[in-house]
């Protein structure tokens, strides 16, 4: 497996606050990594540090290649006041490539429409973002990340506040992108049960600690119970895994 990036004894946090200590791991090209942990345990801090939005407090990050990150932030943080259309939101990601004093090029528009089509929302291109449902908004954010043609798709709680159907559709879309484009995916979620049948590998955070990366096959009731400090059972049903609390 080709290594994309490595963290060596990294200390992650903001200013005086240390969120995670001594994180050492490597992420390979083509990984689908589920980053799991309760709220406030450092999932977003980890993602931001990996993308370079936050500087490491200690340790180092080694990027083996020039990585383009397609970031889908938590959609709750976006203002719903501004009347941007879906295509305007997606085109924002092409700003870096657009020429000053000129409109977006045809290439930019095509990339935006292609991404929307892939996410199944081309018909919503001219709709107002704030009029869409949570699931549709999440698809727009994924389309926006895709329009950058990223090496790594980074998603922060993409299924939060979605109904069961919405959660499944979004996770299925991400899995499809991972499989068809061999896209490396980093997905942060506090719901292990939702992600367990989609990701290949899991990185666990709990109590300000990083418990390292586990392959899906390595997951066991003992390991999860030890990490989260409560009784957790993993059952197998129709080739799928169920997490029972």
């Amino acid at each position, binding site marked *: 497996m080709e290594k994309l990036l490595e963290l060596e004894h990294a200390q992650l946090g903001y200013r005086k606050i240390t969120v995670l200590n001594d994180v050492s791991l490597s992420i390979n090209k083509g990984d689908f990594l589920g980053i799991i942990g309760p709220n406030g345990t450092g999932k977003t801090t980890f993602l931001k540090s990996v993308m370079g939005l936050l500087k490491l407090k200690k340790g180092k990050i080694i990027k083996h290649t020039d990585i383009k990150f397609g970031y*889908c932030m938590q959609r709750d943080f*976006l203002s719903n006041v501004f009347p941007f259309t879906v295509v*305007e939101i997606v085109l924002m990601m092409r700003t870096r490539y657009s020429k000053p004093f000129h409109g977006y090029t045809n290439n930019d528009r095509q990339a935006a429409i292609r991404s929307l089509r892939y996410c199944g929302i081309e018909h919503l291109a001219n709709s107002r973002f704030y009029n869409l449902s949570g699931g549709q908004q999440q698809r727009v954010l994924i389309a926006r990340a895709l329009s950058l043609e990223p090496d790594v798709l980074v998603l922060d709680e993409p299924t939060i506040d979605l109904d069961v159907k919405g959660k499944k559709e979004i996770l299925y879309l991400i899995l499809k992108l991972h499989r068809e484009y061999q896209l490396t995916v980093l997905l942060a979620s506090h719901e292990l049960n939702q992600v367990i049948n989609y990701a290949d590998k899991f990185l666990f955070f709990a109590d300000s600690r990083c418990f390292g990366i586990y392959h899906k096959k390595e997951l066991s009731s003992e390991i999860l119970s030890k990490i989260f400090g409560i009784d957790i059972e993993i059952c197998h049903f129709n080739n799928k895994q169920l997490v029972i609390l």
Partner: protein
Amino acid sequence: MFNFWHEPFLRIGLAVGLISGLLCSLIGFFVILKRVVFIGLAISQIAGLGVVLGLMVGINPYISSFILSVVISIFFWLYNTERDIPRDTVVAFIYLISAGLTTILIAKNPRVEIYGFNVAAGNLLYVTTGDLFVSLLGSVFVLLLFLYFFRALVFISYDRETALTSGIKGAFSDFLFYLMLGIIVSISMRISGLLFVFASLIIPPMTAFKIFTSVNRIIIGSLFISGISVISGFWLSYTFDLPTSPLIICIYGLFFVIGLVINKICIC
């Protein structure tokens, strides 16, 4: 009815008022998008202090106002939102201190006492061709910056973190925004007054938000509201012998009420 158009000083006043109103409304879109409304107020107050200081020590008030506005704008740009004292609190502190200092300087110095009312309310009827020249120069510079970095500013103002991951230089874009804000406020404060500048930053874009539902329409609508308000304010001020800037602000308010009604009836 339009006798005022024949008076040269009124024509210059109208031109400068229009430039100030339009520039403030243009940058006002980003002031609202970035949620830094009170930074606009604090910079306006600091610019007022700059005008008073300039008059007091005998240097060109444009220069003193420009220096103070840009310095404080850069301070706000550098001030990290994650510091111990929240930025909102620091903004309020700077506003209050500069307002207090301005009042003391006006009260205790006969050279600037006469200017006291103008700091708050402005005096658009006593502008000179020099003021017009400075306004034009500043507005061309700001307009070029605005058009050059428009998309990057929209992205960074709407969704900063994603913009940064896409390769937009966030610190530079923020710097440009605060620089433009500082320049616009310092140009406008000298002649238009605190109330006019702050109102022009906020009310026309806010009204346009109520009426229009696309970014381009909001910006154009905001400019239109600002332009119409300034022109009609000038005419009414001349006709009924009323203070110009406060009258324009009242017209902004009227437009906002109309905007609310339109918003209730139909969305354009």
